[in-house]
C-alpha cells in the first residue's frame, strides 16, 4: 500500500496527466460535481459523488458508429472508428466502479462491442473510498463495500493524505509511473478509516435493505404483481433515472442526415420512453406500466437471471435523488417485498 501526502495531490495529478488524459470530479457552475479533464489548477470536488455516473467514459451518451458519404447517386461507407487515447479516471466511487463490471457483462461478451472495449482497454480507473455516505446510498444492498471499492487502483482519503492500493496490472503501472510522489505505508490507517465509515453505513436509513426475495427466477412471481400499477402511476416517462444510472446500458441506433451524408450514431435509450424497443411491427410495451416494470424487472430479475445472480443495480442512489417524482428502485423493491409478504 502506498501513500500520497495531501500537499502532493496536485503534483500527483500533474504526473498522471502527463501520461494520459486525467478526469476527476470537479464542481461545475452550479456547484455540482461532474467529471472533467484535469488541468493545472483544477481542484477535485469534495462532493460525495458526481451528478452523472462514470459510465459515460466507457459508454458515452452518443457516439458515431459509421458514416455514409453520398455524392449524387454514389454512396461510400466510411469506418469512423479511431483508437481511443489512454485516460485515467480518478475518484470513482465504489458504486460506479461496480457498475463497470455490470457493463462488461453486457458489452464484453460475445459479440464484443468493440467501441466499448476500446475505451475499457485504454482507461485506468482509480477509485476513492467513500468517507461521508448519504441517506440515498445503498450499495451495501448489492454487496458492494463503499469502504473498499474496486478499480485498477483503490484510494482512501486520510487526514493528511491518500492511501493507494493497486488492484490490477494497469493499476500497478499507474502507481509505478508516479512512484516518486508515493511512500510505502501499512493498512492500519485505512482500516481505521474503513471502520469509521462502516459505522456510518450501518446507520444509514437504507442499510437494512436486502435483495432477499428478489433476483433469479422471480419473473413469474413479480411480472403480474398488482403493485406495478400504483408504483408506475406517477412516472412521467422521462429518462432521468436511466441517464443518471451507472448501469443502464440500453441504446438506440439512429441515422442523421447531414445533408451530404449519413451519420449512423448510437445514443442512450431509456426504457421509460414511449418508443423504447419500437420495432417494425409496433411497440411491445405500449403503456407506461409495462415500460416502468421493464426497468425494474431488468435490474432486479432479468439481469440476475442471465448473469449468475448479479443484480443490475449498484445502489448509487442517483435515481433516488434525481427522479422528478421521487419514484425509485428502493420504493419498488420494498413494495414488491411487502406485496410478496402479504400474499
Amino acid at each position, binding site marked *: 500500500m502506498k501513500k500520497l501526502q495531501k500537499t502532493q495531490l496536485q503534483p500527483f495529478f500533474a504526473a498522471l496527466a502527463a501520461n494520459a488524459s486525467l478526469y476527476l470530479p470537479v464542481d461545475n457552475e452550479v456547484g455540482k460535481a461532474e467529471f472533467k479533464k484535469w488541468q493545472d489548477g483544477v481542484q477535485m470536488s469534495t462532493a460525495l459523488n458526481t451528478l452523472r455516473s462514470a459510465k459515460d467514459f466507457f459508454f458515452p451518451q452518443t457516439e458515431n458508429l459509421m458514416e455514409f458519404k*453520398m455524392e*449524387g*447517386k454514389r454512396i461510400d461507407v466510411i469506418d469512423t472508428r479511431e483508437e481511443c487515447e489512454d485516460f485515467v479516471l480518478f475518484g470513482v466511487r465504489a458504486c460506479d466502479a461496480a457498475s463497470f463490471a455490470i457493463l462488461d457483462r453486457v458489452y464484453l461478451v460475445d459479440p464484443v462491442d468493440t467501441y466499448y472495449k476500446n475505451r475499457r482497454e485504454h482507461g485506468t480507473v482509480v477509485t476513492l473510498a467513500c468517507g461521508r455516505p448519504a441517506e440515498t446510498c445503498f450499495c451495501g444492498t448489492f454487496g458492494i463495500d463503499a469502504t473498499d471499492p474496486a478499480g485498477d487502483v483503490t484510494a482512501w482519503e486520510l487526514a493528511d493524505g491518500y492511501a493507494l492500493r493497486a488492484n490490477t496490472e494497469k493499476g500497478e503501472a499507474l502507481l509505478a509511473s508516479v512512484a516518486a510522489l508515493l511512500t510505502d505505508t501499512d493498512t492500519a490507517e485505512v482500516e481505521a478509516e474503513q471502520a469509521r465509515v462502516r459505522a456510518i453505513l450501518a446507520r444509514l436509513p437504507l442499510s437494512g435493505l436486502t435483495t432477499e426475495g428478489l433476483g433469479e427466477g422471480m419473473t413469474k412471481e413479480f411480472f403480474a404483481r398488482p403493485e406495478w400499477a400504483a408504483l408506475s402511476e406517477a412516472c412521467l416517462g422521462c429518462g432521468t433515472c436511466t441517464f443518471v444510472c451507472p448501469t443502464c446500458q440500453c441504446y438506440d441506433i439512429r441515422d442523421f*442526415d447531414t*445533408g*451530404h451524408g449519413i451519420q449512423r450514431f448510437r445514443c442512450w435509450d431509456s426504457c421509460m420512453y414511449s418508443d423504447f424497443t419500437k420495432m417494425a411491427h409496433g411497440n411491445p410495451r405500449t*403503456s407506461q406500466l*409495462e415500460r416502468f416494470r421493464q426497468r425494474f424487472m431488468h435490474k432486479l430479475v432479468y439481469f440476475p437471471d442471465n448473469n449468475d445472480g448479479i443484480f443490475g443495480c449498484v445502489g448509487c442512489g442517483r435515481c433516488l435523488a434525481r427522479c422528478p417524482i421521487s419514484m425509485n428502485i428502493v420504493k419498488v423493491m420494498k413494495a414488491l417485498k411487502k406485496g410478496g409478504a402479504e400474499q
Partner: protein
Amino acid sequence: MQRIGVFVCHCGTNIAGTVDVVAVAKALGQEPGVVFSTEYQYMCSESGQQLMRAAIREHKLTGVVVCSCSPRMHEATFRKAAALEGVNPYMVEIANIREHVSWIHKDMAEATEKAVILGRAAIAKVHLNAPLQAGESPVTKRALVIGGGIAGIQTALDIAEAGFEVDIVEKSPTIGGKMAQLDKTFPTLDCAACILTPKMVDAAQNEKINIFAYSELESVKGYIGNFKAQIRRKARFVDETKCTGCGICTEKCPQKKVPNEFNMGLDNRRAIYIPFAQAVPKVATIDANYCTMMKTGKCGICSKVCGTGAIDYTQKDTVIEREYGAIVVATGFNPIDAKVYNEYGYMDSPDVVTSLELERLMNAAGPTNGTLLRPSDKTHPHTIVFVQCVGSRCDETDERGKPYCSKICCMYTAKHAMLIREKYPDTDVYVFYIDVRTPGKNFDEFYRRAVEQYGVHYIKGQVGKVVEQNGKLHVQASDLLANEQLHIDADLVVLATAIEPDKTARSLGTMLTASMDTNDFFTEAHPKLRPVESPTAGIFLSGVCQGPKDIPETVSQASACAAKVIGVLAKDKLTCNPCVAHSDELLCNGCSSCEKVCPYGAISYSDKEFRGPNRTTLIRRVASVNPAVCQGCGACTVACPSGAMDLKGFSNKQIMAEVDAICK
C-alpha cells in the same frame, strides 16, 4: 422512391443567356431519384410539352421538375401536361430559374450554380410530394345580396336574369339606398329617381328575387357554395302582407316630430312612416322609438285608421335561416359626419350643409319641394360656397379625415353648381378645390361647361374658416393661384364631405372573414385582375363597399359581380384547392390552438374513440379540417405544437427538404 424527370427550359435566351442550361440538366441528372434530365428551348411550347409527355411515358416518371420561369407563369401549364400522361398534377414542381436567377444575375457561373441549387430544392420537394386530389362540394343555387342600393339591386337583377334565386337583405325599410336620395345625376343630369325606381320595381316584381327589407344579417357560416345565413327580420309592427301602402296611417299619426332621415333630418316625418313615395316594399313601418303607443300604450290611431288591419304592436323580430351558394357585399357608403370639421361651422349654422343635404334641398320630393332655400330662414341664397375635399385626401396627421379621394365629389359639385346657376342665374357660386378630378366619359366636358358656360367660380385654394355673422356666412379662404386671401360673405356653404364605408361593414367583414383595408373598404382578391371578388372564396363585392365609385362604375361593377356569382351558381359542384391543411388525429391534442388562428373557421372538433394501450379505448377531442373551407394558408400548422396539423403540398417535411437542399 420517385422516378423524377428534370426539364430545364432555355426560354430562348432569357434563361440560356445567363444560365448554362446544359450544365444544369447534367448536374441535376446526377441527383438521387432523377432518371431523366434534359433541356429544351421553350418548355412551355406545344413541342416542349410533347417532349415532357414523351419522357413521362418513356421513363415512367412519377415526378416532374421543371426549371423555368416563375410557377406563377406556367405551373398550371406543366401540371396539365403531366396530368395528360397520368401523373398527378401535384407531382410537378417548378424551379424558378428565370425571374429568380437568369434575369437578376449576370455572372454565368454564379447563375448556373444557383439554378442547380434551386433545381435540387425542387427535386428534394418532389421526393416528398404526394398525389393530391381536389375535393368537390355541392353548390346551393341561391345568392345573398347584402345591401339594397343600386349596387345590390343591379347585382340581384342580373343574377335573377340568369335564372338563379337571389335574396336582398336591406337594413332600412326600403331598398334604393343613397341613389334614391339624389336629385339629378352627372354628367347627363337625368333624374336619379326616374332611372332608379323602375329598377326597384323590377326587383320587387322579379319572382326570383326576395327582398328582405328592414332586415339584418345575424350570422353567416359555411363556405363557397354552402353558406348558411341567419337573417333578422326586424319588427315593423306592420304586417307586410296586409299593408297596401295607402299611407293613411302616416297622415293620421299624431307624432309629427321625428327627424326624417331620408331628407337628412331637414324636415320631420311621423312615427309611422314610408320613407318615400316610391319605396319598395311600399309598406309602413312604426318607429318604436317615437311611437306613443309603443312608449306609453296610449294612442293606437294608426291601428284604427288602417283599413286592412295591418298594424300589429306586438310584432317581434324573427330570425330566418337561408342557404346560399354565394354572397354579395353591397353595403355602400355614408358621408362622414361633418361635425368633426367645425371650422366650417357645420354645427353652428344650419346654412352650412353637406352635399347630400343639398341634394335633398334641391329635390322636388325634398323638404323644400325642389326650391333652393336656406334652411335657417327659408330665403333664396345668392352667394353659395362649395368646399371640396372635406375629410378626403387627408394626410396622416389629420385623424378626422380619410387618406383617400372620395372620387365622386368633384363631379357632383360641378353638377350642383351648374344646376344652381341654371335655375337661379342671379346666384354667385364659388368652388374651393385642391384639384378638380374629372377622369370619366364626358366628365371633363361637364366640368368645363360649369366653368365656361355657367360661370361657376372655381378657386384653387382651401377654406380656412366659416363664421356666421349677421345672417351671413363669412368664409375665409385662400386663392392659391392668385396667392391672396379671400373673404366671401356667403348665404349657403356646401361641404363635399368624404364618403366612408357603411358602419356595418367592419362587423360584416369579420362575420364573412372577408378582408378589409384600414379604411374598412373590402379588399378585392386582386386589385386589377379580380376586382369584384373578395379573397374569401364565395364572397363578392359590389359597389362602394370596395372603394369610392360613381353610379355608372357601381352599376358596371354590380353586373360584373353578378357575372362572377352566376359563374359559381351555374356549377353543380365546386372543385377545392387540394393544398389544404389536414390534421393527423393520432397526434392531435384537441387543444384548439389551430382553430384560433384559422381565418376561415375551417377547423372543427369532435370526440373520437382511439385505441389505447392493451386493447383499451380512449375518447379524445380531435380537430378536423373542412377542405372546402380551408384556403391553405398554413397558420394552423405553426400554431399546432404537436405537428398534427400539416399542409398538403407545403408540408413540414417538404419545406425542410427544400431548406436542406438550399443550405447544403
